[in-house]
C-alpha cells in the first residue's frame, strides 16, 4: 500500500510515488515529469491517505501526458492486409503471430502465416504447430532460405489463394545489428514492391519485462521502417510493461495488442484505461 497513517510528509509521499512509477519501468524521465505534477499540487487539499483518490489523479495525469490513439488495427476486406511482426530476440514474436492468427480467425479473417524466421532453429516448426492450433495455414518453406524470398512466396501464395490477411513472423534481431536491420528493410521493400496495393502494418513486439532499452529498440526500429504499433507480451508475469507509456509519449507509437499467457487465446486489444489501472495496482 502506498500510504500509511504515519506518512504525511510531502517528500515521503513523493518518494513513494517515485518508487511506484520507477518499479513499473516507466523510466526516470516520465517519472520526473509526473512528479512535477504532484509537486505542483497543494497537498493540504490532496487526500493523501486515500489511495483510490490518488490513483484517480495519477491516472488523469498519465492519460493527460500520453497521447491516445483512435484507430486500432483493422482489416480491410477489399484488399490484402499484411502484418509484419518484428522485434528483438525472445520477446515472443512467434507465439504472438499464432495468437494473432487465432484472434483474426475468430473475427472471420482466415490468414496465411509466413515463417520468415529462417534463422533460429525450430522457428518454422514452432509457427507451423501454432498455426494448427489457430486453425490457419502456414506457408511451407525450408530453413536457411532467404527471409525476403520467403515473404515473396507468401505474397504470391496469398494472392493466389485470395487471402485477405497475411501475417509474417520474422527472426528476432537486436537493433544493434546493422545487417539484420537492413535485412528487415529489404523484407519491407519486397512487400511494397510485390504488393503495392496491400495495407502493410508493422508491429513491434516488446516483452513486458524489458526496461528502458525498449525505448531505444522502438526508436531504432522506427529508423529502419515505420512501426505502426506495438504488441506488449508476457503481461502474465510480475512486470508491468510501463515502458510502453514512455514509448507512446516519446515516439507516439500506439500499442495495439497485449498478450498474457501461453494459451493461444491469451491475447486482447490494448485498452489504455485498463492498462494504467493494472499498472497502479
Amino acid at each position, binding site marked *: 500500500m502506498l500510504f500509511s497513517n504515519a506518512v504525511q510528509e510531502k517528500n515521503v509521499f513523493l518518494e513513494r510515488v517515485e518508487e511506484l512509477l520507477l518499479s513499473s519501468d516507466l523510466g526516470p524521465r516520465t517519472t520526473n515529469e509526473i512528479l512535477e505534477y504532484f509537486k505542483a499540487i497543494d497537498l493540504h487539499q490532496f487526500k493523501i491517505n486515500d489511495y483510490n483518490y490518488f490513483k484517480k489523479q495519477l491516472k488523469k495525469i498519465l492519460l493527460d501526458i500520453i497521447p491516445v490513439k483512435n484507430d486500432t488495427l483493422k482489416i480491410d476486406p477489399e484488399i490484402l492486409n499484411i502484418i509484419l511482426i518484428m522485434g528483438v530476440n*525472445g520477446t515472443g514474436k512467434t507465439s504472438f503471430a499464432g495468437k494473432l492468427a487465432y484472434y483474426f480467425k475468430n473475427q472471420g479473417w482466415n490468414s496465411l502465416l509466413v515463417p520468415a524466421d529462417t534463422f533460429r*532453429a525450430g522457428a518454422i516448426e514452432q509457427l507451423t504447430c501454432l498455426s494448427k492450433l489457430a486453425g490457419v495455414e502456414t506457408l511451407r518453406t525450408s530453413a536457411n532460405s532467404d527471409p525476403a524470398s520467403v515473404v515473396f512466396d507468401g505474397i504470391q501464395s496469398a494472392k493466389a489463394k485470395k487471402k485477405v490477411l497475411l501475417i509474417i513472423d520474422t527472426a528476432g534481431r537486436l537493433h*544493434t545489428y546493422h545487417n539484420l536491420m537492413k535485412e528487415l528493410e529489404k523484407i519491407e521493400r519486397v512487400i511494397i514492391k510485390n504488393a503495392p496495393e496491400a495495407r502493410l502494418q508493422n508491429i513491434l513486439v516488446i516483452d513486458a519485462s524489458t526496461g*528502458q532499452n525498449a525505448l531505444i529498440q522502438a526508436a531504432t526500429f522506427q529508423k529502419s521502417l515505420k512501426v505502426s504499433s506495438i504488441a506488449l507480451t508476457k503481461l502474465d508475469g510480475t512486470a508491468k510493461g510501463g515502458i510502453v507509456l514512455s514509448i507512446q509519449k516519446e515516439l507516439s507509437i500506439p500499442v495495439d495488442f497485449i498478450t498474457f499467457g501461453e494459451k493461444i487465446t491469451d491475447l486482447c486489444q490494448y485498452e489504455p484505461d485498463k492498462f494504467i489501472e493494472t499498472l497502479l495496482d
Partner: protein
Amino acid sequence: MLDKLAERLQYIFNKIREKGKISEYDIKQSLREIKLALLEADVNYQVVKEFINRLEQQASGEVLSKTLTPGQQIIKITHGILAEILGEKQNKIKFNDKGQTIILLIGLQGSGKTTTAAKLALSIKNQGFKPLLVAVDRVRPAAVEQLLIMGRKAGVDVFTGVPNKRILDTIHDAEQWARKHRFDVIIIDTAGRLHIDQELIQELKDIKNSLEVQETLLVLDALMGQDALRVAHDFNKEVGVDGYILTKLDGDARGGVALSIKSLTNLPIKLAGVGEKITDLEPFYPDRIASRILGMGDTLTLIEKLEANYARDEMQNMARKEFREQFNINDFYEQLKKIKNIGSLENVFNMMPAQFIGSLKGIKQSIGNEEKALSKVEAIICSMTKKERLEPDVINGSRRRRIAKGSGTSVSDVNRLLNQFFKMKKFLKQQIGKKSLIPFMR
C-alpha cells in the same frame, strides 16, 4: 554492452574532475545526474537509492581532508562502491570431480535458455568434457527440435527421450544413458516459466530433489528492467540458484541488470551471451566490468582474446622497442587484420581504454559499418607503394590524390587513415619503456 552507462558517468565525472573546489550544489547536481544515469541503465531503484545514499554520505564526510581534488574524490568513492557491488573475482562453473556434473538451466520464456544450452555445451566440450544436452522443454512448440539442431551445430549429443513420458523420468533416463555412455556433464534445458507459476516451479523443485544438481543457472535477459530483481529473487528463493547467465549483452542494454542482481542477491554472474553465433558465450569478469563502467577499458579480456589469436613470438615482437619505434603502415595493416580475426571491431573498441577508443572510433564512424571500413582501409593501403608503407612521412598531397584514385576512395578518407596511423604511432612511442605485451592496445 555497458558503454552507454560508462559514457554517461564519465561525462558527469569529467565535469567535476576539472573543478578545484566543489560546492554543496555541485555535489547535489552530480548525485542527481548519477542517479538519472543509473535509472536509465535499468539499475533497480532500490540499488540506486542505496548507491546514492552511500555516495552522498562518503562524499560529504571527507572531501576536504585529502590531497585529492574534491572531484577526484567523488570518482574514487564511486569506483569503490561500484567495485564493491561488482568487484569479486570471476566465478566459474563448478564441476563434480568424482562423477557426473548436472547443470540445470532455468528462466523466463524468451530469455535464451535453449541457445545458451547449446553454447554452454560447446564451451564445456572445448574444455575437454563430454557433455550431453537434455531437452525437456515440452511446452514451447518445436523447442526440442531447436535444441536438436543447435546440438548438431555444437557437435554435442542431445537426449530427447519419449515425448509422453514424465519430465522427471526423462531426466532420469538421460542420467542413466549418460552414465552408460560415459558422458560426464549433463545440461538440462527446461521450459521457460514464470517465477510465479507455482505448478511449474514445483516441477523444478522436484528435479532438484531427485537429482544431485551441481549448478542451477538462471538465464536472465540483459534487456530486462526493474522486474529482473524480483525474478532473480523469486527463482532463488523457490528453486535455489547458484549463479546467473546474462544473455543478449550484444545489444545496447546498459547493464543495470548486472549491477542490480549482483548487489541485492549476491549471487555471481558466471557467463555472458554476447552474440548469435554458437561460440558467443564468455566468462563474466565482474571486476573488469566495474573498470569498464568507469572508463578504464576491459584490457584484460582483450588481452586474453588476443593471446588466443596471436602467436606468442609475435607478441614479443610487438613488445620490442624497435618495433614500437619503427611502426609503419604494414604493421598497422597487420594489426587491423588481426583485430578482424578477433571479432567485430565494435567488440574490440569496447574493450579498449577510453583515451584510445576515440581515435579508432573515428575511423569506424567515418566509414560506416565495420566490414566496409576494413575493406576500405585495405584498398587504401594496397594502393600505396612499398616505400610509402615503410615511410609514411613521404606521402604528400599528390601522393594522397593518387592513393585515393587508386583505391576508389576520397582524399579525405586517405587523410583520415593517415591521421589515425600517426596517432597510433605517437601513442606507441609514448608507450616505450612500458612493459605491456600488446603496447598499442594498452
